[in-house]
């Protein structure tokens, strides 16, 4: 992680991303808030089918989740088309890294940059594939107990999709994540003093979220089969948010 001040973060050239929506604004304007940056553009991922092939994801699952995401967004000219055929023709760019600025504890003008990697099935630096764990803000969908409206998820894909069919030509910056369900409704385990998360038994676990909903890297430690312990003592911000 690298320390950066808010001034340094605002000097980053290139795309401008609205913090809450993850949508790129085509106009040139100064944006003073810290923003997430997608990096490491993948080759041969110009359409959704190619992206799914590269990342070894079922195209039907991806399409289903994008359509669900589209239905949940506001109906305006920036919205993605609800027709799967039109959606499949939109230009896409896949990425391998998401830089997330996380405000430092008790220092509101300093940020730690969390670099969440998502290489799909490809090796990361001559090692195995790397698909990092992240925190996803759910925004009141469920309370999740002591996790306080946030869930642990594994990054499966990071991509940008441009809606060329609309006049605005808005770019949506999205992440496909595999969400883990909190065990015991997200309450602390009495004996160990930690929150546990695990794979859902019946419900859908893959979701498309805007990169604005990814609020930082999560640290989990495997604990038995398909269960993980959330390490909330990894840093001061996490320690103060989960207690």
């Amino acid at each position, binding site marked *: 992680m690298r320390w950066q001040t808010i001034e340094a973060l605002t000097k980053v050239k290139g795309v401008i991303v609205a913090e809450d929506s993850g949508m790129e604004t085509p106009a040139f304007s100064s944006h003073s808030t810290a923003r997430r940056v997608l990096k490491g553009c993948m080759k041969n991922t110009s359409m959704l089918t190619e992206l799914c092939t590269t990342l070894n994801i079922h195209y039907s699952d991806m399409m289903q989740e994008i359509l669900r995401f589209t239905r949940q967004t506001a109906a305006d000219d920036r919205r993605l088309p609800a027709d799967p055929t039109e959606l499949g023709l939109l230009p896409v760019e896949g990425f391998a890294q998401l830089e997330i600025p996380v405000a430092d*504890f*008790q*220092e509101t003008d300093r940020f730690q940059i969390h670099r969440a990697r998502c290489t799909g099935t490809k090796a990361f630096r001559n090692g195995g594939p790397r698909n990092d764990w992240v925190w996803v803000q759910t925004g009141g969908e469920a309370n999740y107990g002591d996790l306080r409206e946030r869930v642990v998820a594994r990054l499966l894909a990071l991509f940008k999709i441009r809606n060329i069919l609309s006049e605005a030509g808005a770019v949506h910056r999205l992440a496909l994540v595999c969400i883990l369900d909190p065990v015991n409704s997200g309450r602390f*385990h009495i*004996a*160990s*003093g*930690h929150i546990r998360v695990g794979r859902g038994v019946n419900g859908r676990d893959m979701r498309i979220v805007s990169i604005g909903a990814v609020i930082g890297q999560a*640290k989990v*430690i*495997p*604990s*038995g089969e398909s269960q993980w*312990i*959330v*390490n909330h*003592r*990894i*840093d*001061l911000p996490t*320690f103060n948010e989960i207690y």
Partner: protein
Amino acid sequence: MRNLGHCISAVLASALRNPDSSQYHDFKSALKSVSWLVDFSLMAQYRSHTPDTLSYMERYLQTFHRTKDIFLKFRTSKATCTRADRQDQELRELMADQRAKDVHHRTVANRCRQADQERVERSDRRANLIRRENHFNFIKMHYVTHVASHVRGFGSISMYSTAIGELAHKD
């Protein structure tokens, strides 16, 4: 300690996740003790404090001191080990002498029962000696009791960190 503290609690929780009935209490104490110490360590890194955070810190430390005895047996020095071995040997010889005197008047079952009792007694005496000799009276353990009063008197301890100076001496 700082980097270890970031992960030790969760790693320990994962490693000790399946205790049997005899281990449950010990594992729970060990986890609690480590967690309270890590919480204290994290809270000591705050850049500013309130009376509430200081009272939390003191409570964490008190709870750590109450539960830390679970690690006492791992602080046995070589001298204590030697003394315990010597005591064990002396007891064994004493018991063997007593057994030799009245061996003809006892049945096999009685002898087995007596051997078991002797083993338990030796083990208890060894544990008592180790508990009596081991302690946490060393300077680092004492210093942490002054952190809260130091913060009240001089402010947050992070500005007294020697990490930057130590880093400058690295080759």
